[in-house]
């Protein structure tokens, strides 16, 4: 009996403590609920946002680049350890990396919006943030149009709609120029080597597959399901690619700078058509993706840009 009573006292104490903590943790901003707007993200979620946003956290390097490019770098209060561009970004507080963000630190920074890339797959994490009344905006571009859309949306969120539209307009012009230049050239059959051992490539759903198509390349793995499939060595050999793209350098350092063994006798290697292109321009769907597009197009069709 006494044990039961002690237990019930304990339970009540626990309940009171929890309630106190809970009310203390509820953000004060909730009183401001009248002035909100709604915006739909790439995951199809409706996100409620305050009328003005001046505290943003980015959980992916491409999103950090977008926030800076639309002119809202001063509103960024947190970033991941991978966010190393532009240089000013490094002065901003780190909140872990894309795969392991630190929830406590994020809440302590009191953001109004957290920008997430679905690549980081943070479902549970997203729910926890929403429980704290912090809006979570998800981007998931599968092609260059999707990137332009993310830029415009993020511009809208941070109140830099004009800056974002101007940026997208300039990026579109550069994209059109590339597409016009390579339009009449036969597409080059390309193998995109994400890593050599084990062999990974870019599949149908990868953002970079669309970028390659626009750069006048026909990716030999564009029909393979998934975004980054592990690929068969013998299929790579049998594909006989005319050119190989090695996303390397940038934050990748020297990783992935050698052609996979199965491709050492490919026409691409025999004719010296192996192109290393800055991985940060190809793997981060952001403003610099158009740099990657130009670099690929110039490498694959040098005559078109004389």
């Amino acid at each position, binding site marked *: 009996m006494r044990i039961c009573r002690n237990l019930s006292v304990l339970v009540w104490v626990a309940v009171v403590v929890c309630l106190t903590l809970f009310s203390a943790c509820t953000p004060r901003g909730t009183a401001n609920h009248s002035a909100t707007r709604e915006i739909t993200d790439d995951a199809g979620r409706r996100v409620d946002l305050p009328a003005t946003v001046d505290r943003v956290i980015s959980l992916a390097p491409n999103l950090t680049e977008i926030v800076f490019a639309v002119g809202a770098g001063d509103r960024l209060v947190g970033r991941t350890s991978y966010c190393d561009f532009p240089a000013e970004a490094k002065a901003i507080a780190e909140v872990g990396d894309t795969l392991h963000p630190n929830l406590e630190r994020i809440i302590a920074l009191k953001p109004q919006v957290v920008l997430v890339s679905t690549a980081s797959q943070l479902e549970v994490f997203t729910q926890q943030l929403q429980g704290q009344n912090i809006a979570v905006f998800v981007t998931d571009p599968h092609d260059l149009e999707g990137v332009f859309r993310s830029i415009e949306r993020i511009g809208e969120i941070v109140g830099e709609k004009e800056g974002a539209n101007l940026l997208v307009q300039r990026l579109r012009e550069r994209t059109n120029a590339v597409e016009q230049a390579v339009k009449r050239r036969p597409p080059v059959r390309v193998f995109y080597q994400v890593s050599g051992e084990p062999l990974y490539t870019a599949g149908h759903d990868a953002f970079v597959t669309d970028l390659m198509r626009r750069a006048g390349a026909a990716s030999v793995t564009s029909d*393979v399901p998934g975004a980054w499939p592990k690929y*068969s060595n*013998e299929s790579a050999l*049998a594909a006989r690619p005319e050119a190989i793209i090695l996303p390397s350098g940038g934050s*990748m350092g020297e990783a992935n700078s050698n052609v996979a063994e199965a491709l050492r006798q490919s026409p691409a290697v025999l004719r010296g058509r192996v192109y290393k292109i800055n991985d940060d321009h190809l793997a981060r769907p952001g403003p610099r993706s158009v740099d990657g597009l130009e670099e690929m197009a110039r490498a694959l069709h040098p005559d078109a840009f004389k």
Partner: protein
Amino acid sequence: MTSTASEVVASPARPHRVTLRKTLIACAVLAGALLLAIVLMALLGSEQLPVRASLCALASFGTSTCGLSQDQFDILFQIRLPRILLAAAVGGSLATAGAGYQALLRNPLAEPYLLGISNGAAVGTMIALVFFGASEWTRPILAFTGALAATLAVYRLARGRAGATPERLILAGVIVTTFLSSVIVFVTVLMDATRIRSFTFWLLGDLSGTSKALLPVTIIIAIAGALALTLHARSLNLLMLGERDAFDLGVEVGRVRIVVFLVASLLVGSSVAASGSVGYVGLVVPHLARLSLGSDNRLTIPAAALGGALFVIVADTVARTVIAPRELPVGAITALIGAPLFIYLLRRA
């Protein structure tokens, strides 16, 4: 006690009386099946090769192209065949090591994975990849070192005042396994995001990165290891009666134990360095061998070596063809086949 023990050893079970003839027949049958599997599985892959020309080229040991194009010839001899041979070496190594541990520890669940030996080898390989990425020779050396260190740690932990009982040993293995698993997680978290993906694939067991330089070494170690343990099979049979009885019967228990630990560490180290952690092979294959051929190690160990090679060759063919041109890690297939088979075997036994 001693006399009954020696009787049991002389004829372990009537239907499974082991003679040299029976051993040779069983091994010849398994070796024939292995050879057949190597040829047949070489005909399967994500790319379709002409069957007759491929068979002709295989029969000529690669001296004639038999009308295969250069690419087809390269696929067959540079990609498929080395990978199949590696699968055979890895499967043979792991099954032999498993059979050795099971006999020595008198525990049917003893397995390189359960004892933490594979994780030790994996940590060694990771250190080699992170710090000496360029030289592939450091991988098997550090993997062997890691496997041996894990073995010694397990052994030290298990050795109580009353000697190393099998129960203590398995428990020590669980502790070492979980500890080394956290080390692996720690290292992967510290590593570049770009390298995590290839590591997670490798940790599940992957044969696609067959290294031309290491392949012969892996094969030689597999054969030498299986022979070494087969030569100790008699002592292992006696050890299965209990260490004290074995000692009374003249077995140098300490020396046999060291030999088994060294050889098994070498086998696990070389296979983990080449292919990551392919699970369930060391558990399922020796069980199958015992169930079908009896529990005399003179037959179990060579049969497990050949059967393990066969098992991993078939599992890897599934891994590289079932969603072609994409690939699965072979460890996922061995676990998918191995776990249900193991449950079935346990229920039947």
